[in-house]
């Protein structure tokens, strides 16, 4: 069983703000879903190798060819990009630190 503190810890790991109501609902759903995962315990999986990629498909190496991207400004416009060419973000440490 996952408790509310564990739900909040996981939310912290993925940098996600959740309200107390959301934490309650996530805790309830989490425990139902984790309970469902227990079905895998009934399978004979001890001697099975884990799936580590598709053995039938080989990703080909592609040529080390330089190609030009002409739409850099479109990318920049999607972010807070300043005149010096850097992403603008708030203070990393915050005012209190």
């Amino acid at each position, binding site marked *: 069983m*996952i408790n509310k503190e564990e*739900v909040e810890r*996981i*939310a912290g*790991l*993925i*940098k*996600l*703000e*959740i309200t107390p109501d*959301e934490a309650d*609902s*996530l805790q309830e*759903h*989490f425990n*139902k*879903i984790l309970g*469902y*995962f*227990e*079905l*895998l315990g*009934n*399978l004979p*999986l001890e001697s*099975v*190798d*884990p*799936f*580590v*990629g*598709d053995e*039938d*498909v080989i*990703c*080909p190496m*592609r040529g080390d060819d330089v190609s030009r991207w002409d*739409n850099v400004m*479109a*990318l920049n416009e*999607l*972010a*807070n990009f300043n005149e010096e060419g850097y*992403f603008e*973000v*708030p*203070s*990393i*440490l*915050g*005012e209190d*630190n």
Partner: protein
Amino acid sequence: MSVRELSAREIAGLVKRGELKATEVVRAVFDEIKNNEKKLNALITIMEERALKRAELIDEKVAKGQWKEKALLGVPVVLKDNICVEGYPTTCGSKMLKKWISPYNAGIVDYLEEAGTILIGKSNMDEFAMGSSTEHSAFGPTSNPWDLERVPGGSSGGSAASVAAGYVPLAFGSDTGGSIRQPAAFCGVHGMKPTYGLVSRYGLVAFSSSLDQIGPFTRTVEDMALALDVIAKHDYRDSTCWTGNRPSYSEAILNANIKGMRVGVVRDFMEEGLDDELAQAVEKGLGILVENGAIPVDLNLGDIKECALPCYYIIAPAEASSNLARYDGVRYGLREDADNLLDQYIKTRGKGFGDEVKRRIMIGTFVLSSGYYDAYYLRGLKARKYVCEKFKEAFSNVDVIVMPSTPTPPFKKGELVGDPIQMYLSDIFTLPVNLAGLPGISVWMGLNSTGLPMAMQIIAPKWHEVRILKAAAKIEETIGACPLAPGGE
């Protein structure tokens, strides 16, 4: 016959011969959208100006005797809103990307435009393709054109509804655990998930990278083959895209012969938990194949029905938690102001993501976290291998497998939204196919006794889409092509 009743092949033929103008097609499509969109809510972005310009260009070319080699000339197309079109929003059904404008075209967009199609709009979907009902969209739910009180399925519900309602004869979605086949079944159209790697995913916003695949929705099997001819190409920009040769799918299904085709049927799947009429529909489909010379073979797929759902809901959220880490308010998407960077991340993600996305990235992070990895993620990977091996064994005895597409007909809006496990169970028959990377189609099987669509799923070994299309063509010869849904009138 009105434009909305025409197949993609018929529209392309008429436009090429100069018997129908592309501009007439586009005007008819937008009339249809204007009349029905308020009740269906199938589209997030409508691209009317772009479509009209494109249609005018096509008419000019045809008048000069050009572009007649283009397979889908003048065919209107809808794309799920997680496929990038340069200069237009790609919202993924999320507040997070509401204002994000794609800076480039997805691979399939280039292929479709080369083939002469006209992009009409971007369709509604469950947020970041996580859902089975198109109710988890920041843009409101889509309605099923067969019964407006019911869901169209998901996550590609807007694309399926667009084809069923007669907006377009061809739409595209993405399928990670059934997100093409389940809405196709619910909306009474054909929907195919090709083999993992057959179609380029360049420009498809990633959800679960080892499972995602793009595929078409159509009302005829012929259009399905035509669509595959256009989009199934190797694309160097997607490193998982297969380099092998693709056949001409359209040629392969001409005069399709399935005599001697061994068709596997999994009796265990036809028992508990399956709607009676849907079980009868699968039996009927199997009967049609047998009447056409196929040989039925009873199959045992072990415990894959029981293990596929927990396996999928470990692996897909684990990959999603990694793929969605990029939405932090810095480089693109929603940005919530805060005094420091950490608060900006936390607030942006808290505001930008909806409930289902939060739930899944939380699960994904949990199963990958220290202390739980072996118990969940590693066990999920082993279960996935088990599913792959079971299918491998099965396909040493049969050429295709038939099974239900969904356990139930389309359910009512709001019916399952508070119960994630019940919602996840609506993909129980489609999930195993994604885990094994196989191709699968959901084929229209007529209406049930209450007037709701029924479907059947046909699965083949990797790269054998031709077998699926041949079998589906035989089903269609008896059942008929998918009719237009009444909600689109």
